[in-house]
């Protein structure tokens, strides 16, 4: 369990906005080793799962070299968008972080 202020690897396509620069301002209490969201193993992501690489507001989702969608939950702002988008395909497992962990909004 450590306080961190890093996260997000994705970049906005055309605008080149680094979401990591935005998340840098936020406070998180990371539950190390216990990610609250998991992408289920898959060969080829559905269109819905693939869309998370640009839909996630914290840029948590990225495409790896072999074509699978991966998640790094450290910058997650717990909005739930990814769960809603993939509800039909069931490709991710979404839970709240354990009580007290995750993002801590100062202003909200």
């Amino acid at each position, binding site marked *: 369990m450590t306080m961190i202020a890093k996260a997000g690897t994705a970049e906005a396509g055309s*605008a080149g*906005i680094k979401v990591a620069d*935005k998340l840098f301002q936020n406070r998180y*209490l990371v539950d190390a080793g216990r990610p609250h969201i998991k992408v289920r193993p898959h060969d080829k992501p559905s269109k819905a799962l693939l869309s998370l690489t640009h839909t996630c507001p*914290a*840029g948590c989702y990225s495409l790896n070299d072999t074509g699978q969608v991966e998640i790094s939950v450290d910058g997650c702002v717990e909005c739930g968008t990814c769960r809603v988008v993939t509800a039909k395909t069931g490709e991710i497992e979404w839970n709240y972080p354990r009580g*007290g962990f995750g*993002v*801590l*909004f100062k202003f909200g």
Partner: protein
Amino acid sequence: MIEQRFDAIVVGAGPSGNAAAYTMATAGLKVLQLERGEYPGSKNVQGAILYASALEKIIPDFRDDAPLERHVIEQRLWTMDDASHVGVHYRSSDFNEERPNRYTILRAQFDKWFSRRVRDAGAILLCETTVTELLRDPAGRVIGVRTDRDGGTAFADIVVLGEGVNGLVGQRSGLRPELKPDNVALAVKEMHFLPRETIESRFNLKQDEGVVIEAMGTITAGMTGTAFLYTNQESISIGIGCLVSDFAENQQTPYGLLEAFKNHPSIKPLLENAECKEYVAHLIPEGGYNAIPELYGDGWIVVGDAGQFVNAVHREGSNLAMTTGRIAGETIVALKQRHQAMSKANLAEYRRRLDETFVMKDLKKYRKIPAFLHRNKQIFGLYPKLFAGAAQTWLRVDGIDKRTKEKEILKSFRKGRTLPGLIGDAFNFARSWR
């Protein structure tokens, strides 16, 4: 966890959960409130505008110590194209009244304050405690909750679900379906700090006066959505949101949209030299009346965002949350006083009471609007462009006579949308609105 038995367990310490807990605790009920965040507000996000009337009915003297930012004296509604905005502004000194009607707030601070009042009223609050499931008796009645605090359980006559838009507890217990991507919007927001004098001079404000801007147009890149800018004491809340289904189908990133909005020539000067201190995102239930799930059953009741209580047209949500929370609380207190069971049949009183309030009346009035806005993307792309073009044609003085300009404007509308299209849009909009 806590071995005691409670009259009511409230899941969540946002506006709806706090309103319910306060109402019940004030009436003498034994209330346990569970919040997954480190402190109330730490997981909560809103624009944020506080509508005084909903809170006054719960805590009449809230103005004495609630953390309020600025009372709103001016509202600007803008439609924007890439270079301009066309606006309707309403500003009135009447809003400088003894008991102002609307305030900007910062939710993390406001929720902490509200929660303090809830605890002062006698409710027990446990933070850092995530509710994992509802407990039922063999007959299927909800009798309590299990939490992630060492798997601890707590029991009560009724569980009030004020768990927010991501209401996993109710959803996974089969009380309501998963959110649909076209019934929910994703909004992102930043907090930009500036000296208060700078905000006051930039927005033409004195002391605690505030301005809010609501905007739509090409800023959402053809998607169904809106943007906003609210003035706080020493900061500006700026955000943008679109339907999740639209985000999923387009290549836009939420933060890319926000950045473009911040860099719009009508917005950029307002944020100049500001320091961003937080970036947040949240879902907003926007399905309206038709998306309202089952609101009560044997031993449970739903309040706030978990029940889809948001009036997307008027950007109202926290007032609906507080009102549904209060009325749920009042219904429970009334049943308790009459020694009646917290059964589905008896809790129907909640719905009957809600139907008499602005909450259900407004949501019902606008029940066709979500589908209308979802189907008619021209509202967000084409029309703002046509309005901007018309304004420029009309206002630019260039030796062309006014009748020719009028014809040019009409032609642009006919060309952009066709005459039957224009009439159809007006008709469909009017039909959805009434």
